[in-house]
């Protein structure tokens, strides 16, 4: 069948394969070189017992001894608990989330923090906030009639 391919057909096929390999290579590089990680498998949690299970028994921000911060957040219809995360500029923050009810989506504006929150699962994502400012946290997965009121913020202090 290769013999019956037209010259132009071969050229376009070759260019397409090349383009896709370059694109795939760029993505592989963004993972290996820039160290971008996606959420992955963590311990499961009983959605009915979220508030009795560490660390979700104490939602909030903790500054760790090494200067990093851990923000434990419960995503529920239709609020983030807590809805304000305050950290000093330059802090690397690990966000740890789960949901006791339905799916939610965790997106911090102007960052690459964008992850699903699924009942029964724990979501962990990390972000360093270099500059002071206020960053909105929006729920981006439909979670019922009040979905569009589910909003929070990260306050980065100087």
């Amino acid at each position: 069948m290769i013999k019956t391919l037209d010259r132009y057909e071969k050229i376009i096929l070759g260019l397409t394969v090349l383009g896709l390999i370059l694109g795939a290579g760029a993505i592989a590089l963004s993972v290996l070189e820039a160290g971008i990680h996606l959420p992955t498998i963590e311990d499961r949690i009983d959605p009915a017992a979220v508030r009795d299970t560490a660390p979700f028994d104490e939602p909030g921000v903790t500054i760790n001894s090494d200067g990093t911060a851990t923000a434990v957040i419960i995503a529920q219809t239709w609020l983030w608990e807590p809805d304000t995360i305050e950290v000093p500029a330059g802090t690397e923050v690990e966000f740890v989330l789960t949901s006791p009810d339905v799916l939610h989506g965790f997106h911090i504006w102007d960052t690459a923090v964008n992850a699903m929150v699924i009942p029964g699962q724990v979501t962990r994502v990390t972000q360093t906030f270099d500059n002071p400012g206020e960053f909105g946290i929006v729920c981006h997965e439909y979670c019922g009639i009040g979905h569009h009121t589910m909003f929070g913020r990260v306050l980065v202090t100087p």
Partner: protein
Amino acid sequence: MIDETPHEDAKATLSGFAGELDAMPGGRVQRRYALYQAYLAFFGLALGGAIGLLQAMDRAGQDLYESVGLQSYYQGLAIHGVTLAIVFTFTFSNAWLQYATMRGFQRPLAHTWIVKTSFWLSATGIALASYALLTNQATVLYTMYAPLAAHWTYYLGAALLVVGTWAVLANQLLTLRAWRKDNPGERIPLIVFASLMTYLMWFIASLGIAVEVLVFLLPWSLGLIDGVDPLLTRTLFWFSGHPIVYFWLLPAYTSWYMVVPKRANGRLFSDPVVRVVFIMFLLLSTPVGLHHQFTDPGVDEGLKFVHGMLTFAVFFPSVITAFTLMAAFEDGGKRAGGKGLFGWIAKMPWKDPMASTQIVAMITFLFGGMSGLINASYTVNQVVHNTSFIPGHFHMTVGSAVALSFMGIAYWLVPHLTNKKLHSDLLGVVQGWTYGIGVLIFGRGLMVSGLNGQPRRVPINQASYANPEWFEGDALGAIGGFLMVAAGLMFFYNLIRTMASKTPAREHELAFEVSDVMVPAEDGPAILDRVGFWFVAAFALVLLAYIPAFITQGFDPASPMWQPW
């Protein structure tokens, strides 16, 4: 509508393929039932499109949901998604590709009762799902992510719509067996090959949603089981939810390859290459679904990467399609006297509503397809996931490449099946451009807002947050939306005037000619036609891609029903 007494057109013998089919046993009834499936599709398009108007008004700052009797934006959105992405697409594909299969084989399908059964399964499914949606008992949106729980009629309706597509596949396969007995050694006609691969691909793909609904959601909604695992049902949804986009797209591709170039007087470069394109969709459509779950917890990072890379491979057959189609149009335009490097463009069938509407759909798909590569990119997806960028993208794929192509197909299929002349060719041409320009404006608007962090699926003017950067995107979204609705009205006006008309169809409407090829099927290896072999290979690839995902994510059915709307 279900009246089986012959219409007036039955008295006279039709010219063209419709007449030939009518002369064969079962042909007339099957032709009629193909039309009935198209009517179901138009019902879905009308209802879903009407909600589109409310959504455009919402972007313009007007909340009209309560005034038309809907509880919320979300109830409207659930109706919009299901009627357009499932009802309209499934039933139109059933109509068009059943008929295309008959055309390719030059005979009715093996069993008329299966043709009827497919229609009744679809119709019952639509009735059940519509009941749940319109009574606000299924405001779980098109994605129906558990533990959001809909009324059981919604899940049963969705299941019946899927089984209706399986009936079409069964009939195609039985007809293939009978045809092969009568035509030993012959190559499967290309239009049949395309239609069959579409349904075979969807059969494998639909197993995910079939298990999700029949094993988990339906028993759960009936109270037979207490809980579900939200991650598992979500994974099963996307097992079907990515390849469903090819089930929407491939019926349009079948028309783009087999009907539109013929009208443009152009020939396809190579029959075997077209077969390879459809085989690649069969093989690669399904083992890529985890790219919809890049941002999910509980799904292995390495498996996400593998699925992301395979998604790039499925872009390949679409590039071949773009090449082959443009080459065919250039061939046709040059044979029609087009001079120079671009003279052939002017010679394309711009005045023919069937062809020009589908060509506009192809143009919008250039943007839709490319933006899809962005979403599929493992890391770049972080920027766009669940933002307005996504509906911006898919309105340029399913919302135009597919929806507008189906309207274009309807411009000849409805006259063909009813023997009534299309009311206005000009209105059809204008409609195609209006819709195409509208969807590009809409897509541009939603994409830019999405890049500025606007979440998708939100009544943005009622949200407790706002961003001045969204103004431009919302305005473009509203303007584009209004143009799409205006084009929808033109389509239905033309359709209704056509069906009410007494003028018989024109010769080119009654004919069903398919594209010629330069390199015939016989020049390709015989293995291309080994349908069973490709089916097994595709199935094996799906198992390889998904068994590790199901094993590693575990199972804990701990979530009860939630109905927070």
